[in-house]
């Protein structure tokens, strides 16, 4: 089977003396030594890997590991110093400026960490950008852009401007912009890293769902091992511009290539790494102290099928109300929630380890609120979701 993308021994040196730096890399000097001797920074050093058609390859590493530079070497937003990048057997590094432009139009859709949407264009015009510069006729352009917007669930927002959208929605536009092109490769540079944890998880799920239908070849950059494990068919682990290990999540977790990888992997050890943040779910309803009385609160609980509801005032969670109390309050003709508000509730921070959640949950019979430092509600934990989250984590993370 031929590979869709072949990255062959690619180097990228930033700075004045690439030749000297290359020689020093060969002699096994570290990046700091090379920086001291030549004033050049090593972005990527001798990276080789392949990507198969329809595969999601996650390039993962900490910041400064050269992963963003690497993905830009594939479509030559950054010119590799030496090395070859082949797409469908065509050596991208040999293309002339004009050929490269055409090649990008045809093969690469790209999604950026900070969305990089054009602020002066509407959502639809943003999505249509790639088609517009290919001079696709307006009718087809509109149709294909609307189709891409529908795919990411943003139908009805086409005439808004990016600034009017939330972060998650903006990145959907970014995704649609890349999808509309019908390019066969998607380069996603930390596409979900700027999003809130819950939205990030939704977007990951949606990407996987979308991939079932569109079957693109995806190179996904991430600094988050959980994300890499979740969406990557295979993972390329990078450090200091070099590849440390390539393999499936399973292979990397069970068979780390060296200490560095092992230490990384340790971090996904379930009991230690699952946190409140990774097992929380969206609250199905919230009561607002200022506007909701007992009736409204009860109705919200009935609709959502829950027996207690958290109460919010000025963006902060101030307590909760149970269905029983609300029903009583209605009988007593109470107008607000003040009399039945239970302020003494258990809360945790997003970084609380999952293992510590069990004893807390055992002692209460209502959900546990996950609050950030400003008492904003990030999510809730119910017994069921904690177990489900752990089970899911054990499935993907495996060995321990």
């Amino acid at each position, binding site marked *: 089977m031929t590979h869709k993308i072949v990255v062959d021994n690619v180097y990228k040196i930033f700075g004045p003396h690439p030749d000297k730096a290359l020689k020093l890399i060969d002699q096994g000097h570290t990046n700091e030594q090379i920086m001291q001797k030549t004033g050049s920074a090593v972005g990527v050093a001798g990276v080789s890997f392949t990507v198969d058609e329809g595969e999601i390859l996650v390039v993962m590493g900490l910041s400064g590991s050269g992963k963003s530079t690497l993905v830009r070497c594939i*479509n030559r*937003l950054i010119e590799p110093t030496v090395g070859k990048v082949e797409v469908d057997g065509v050596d991208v590094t040999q293309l002339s400026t004009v050929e*490269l*432009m*055409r*090649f*990008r*139009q*045809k093969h*690469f*859709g*790209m999604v*950026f960490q*900070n969305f*990089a949407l*054009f*602020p*002066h264009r509407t959502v639809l015009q943003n999505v249509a*950008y*790639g088609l*517009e*510069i*290919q001079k696709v006729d307006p009718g087809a352009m509109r149709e294909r852009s609307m189709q891409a917007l529908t795919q990411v669930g943003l139908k009805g927002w086409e005439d808004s401007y990016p600034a009017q959208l939330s972060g998650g929605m903006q990145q959907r536009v970014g995704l649609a*912009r890349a999808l509309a*092109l019908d390019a066969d490769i998607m*380069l996603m540079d930390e596409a979900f890293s700027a999003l809130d944890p819950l939205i990030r998880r939704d977007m990951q799920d949606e990407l996987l769902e979308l991939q079932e239908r569109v079957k693109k070849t995806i190179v996904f950059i991430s600094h988050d091992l959980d994300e890499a494990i979740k969406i990557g068919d295979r993972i390329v682990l990078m450090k200091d511009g070099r590849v440390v290990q390539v393999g499936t999540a399973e292979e990397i977790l069970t068979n780390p290539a060296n200490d560095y990888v092992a230490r990384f992997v340790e971090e996904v050890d379930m009991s230690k790494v699952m946190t409140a943040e990774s097992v929380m779910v969206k609250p199905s309803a919230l009561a607002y102290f200022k506007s909701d009385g007992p009736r409204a609160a009860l109705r919200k609980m009935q609709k959502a099928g829950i027996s207690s509801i958290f109460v919010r005032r000025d963006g902060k969670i101030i307590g909760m109300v149970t269905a029983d109390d609300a029903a009583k309050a209605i009988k007593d003709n109470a107008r607000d929630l003040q009399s039945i508000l239970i302020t003494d509730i258990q809360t945790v921070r997003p970084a609380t380890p999952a293992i510590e959640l069990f004893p807390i949950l055992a002692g209460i019979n209502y959900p546990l609120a996950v609050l950030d430092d400003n008492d904003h509600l990030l999510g809730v934990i119910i017994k069921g979701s904690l177990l489900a989250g752990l089970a899911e984590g054990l499935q993907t993370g495996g060995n321990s």
Partner: protein
Amino acid sequence: MEQFKIPIGRGIEAVINFFVDHFSFATKAFAGVTENGINLLVSAMMFFPPWALILIFTAISWLLTRNRGITIFTMAGMALIWNLGLWDPTVSTIALVIIATLFSIMIGVPLGIFAALNGVFYRIVMPVLDLMQTMPAFVYLIPAIPFFGLGPVAAIFATVIFSMPPAIRLTCLGIKQVPQELVEAADAFGSTKWQKLFKLQLPISAPTMMAGVNQTIMLALSMVVIAAMIGARGLGGEVWRAIQRLEADRGFEAGLGIVIVAIILDRIMQKLGSRAKKQ
């Protein structure tokens, strides 16, 4: 020390003389064409009776700004000018400013774009702009005469030199301020340089460019007044005459006319700029 004076002045004079000797036929021909243009614009504006022109200007200011205050000021200010008997010089001042600004923008905006996209040109042009802006404005009047002859075209030449720097500078600044990640996104989708320029860089830098155009207009207005010394007509001419005859009353009235024209142009342009920003 002085016997070894470095002949900067003489050198510049030699260069100017050379150009005058060899190219003045071209500049004079250009002067003829431009002068016809100015006359055409002036007589077109003079074709209307003052009250009609005032209404036209008022309507334009309403259409451009949708601001009641600015519109009323335009009407009242111009009516006052008419009442002071400064109508004809005001019309020719406005004509000079319009033409000089058009030239400045036509030359300045492309230069600004080029400076933003080309590092070498940027490093050359910035010190030149500093020089152009610090040099006393009167100096530009001197070489203008041998090239274009005494009169409004020489005035426009000096005005364009004096008022062009902000157009170049702010166009360049606006384009450089376009976030790098947006430029990268445009590149990633395979845009040509021109597509990037017209679909991304120019629209996003529009508010900054409008600020540059506003400054250009203000500088043009102030220079058109100074250029009265070499035969530009208009409100500057009135001021110049008042100085020579020591007529404080006439001088103040003409000065007031200039202030009114300046405020009208400035407010309209500012409104346009902030509207561009909103988009």
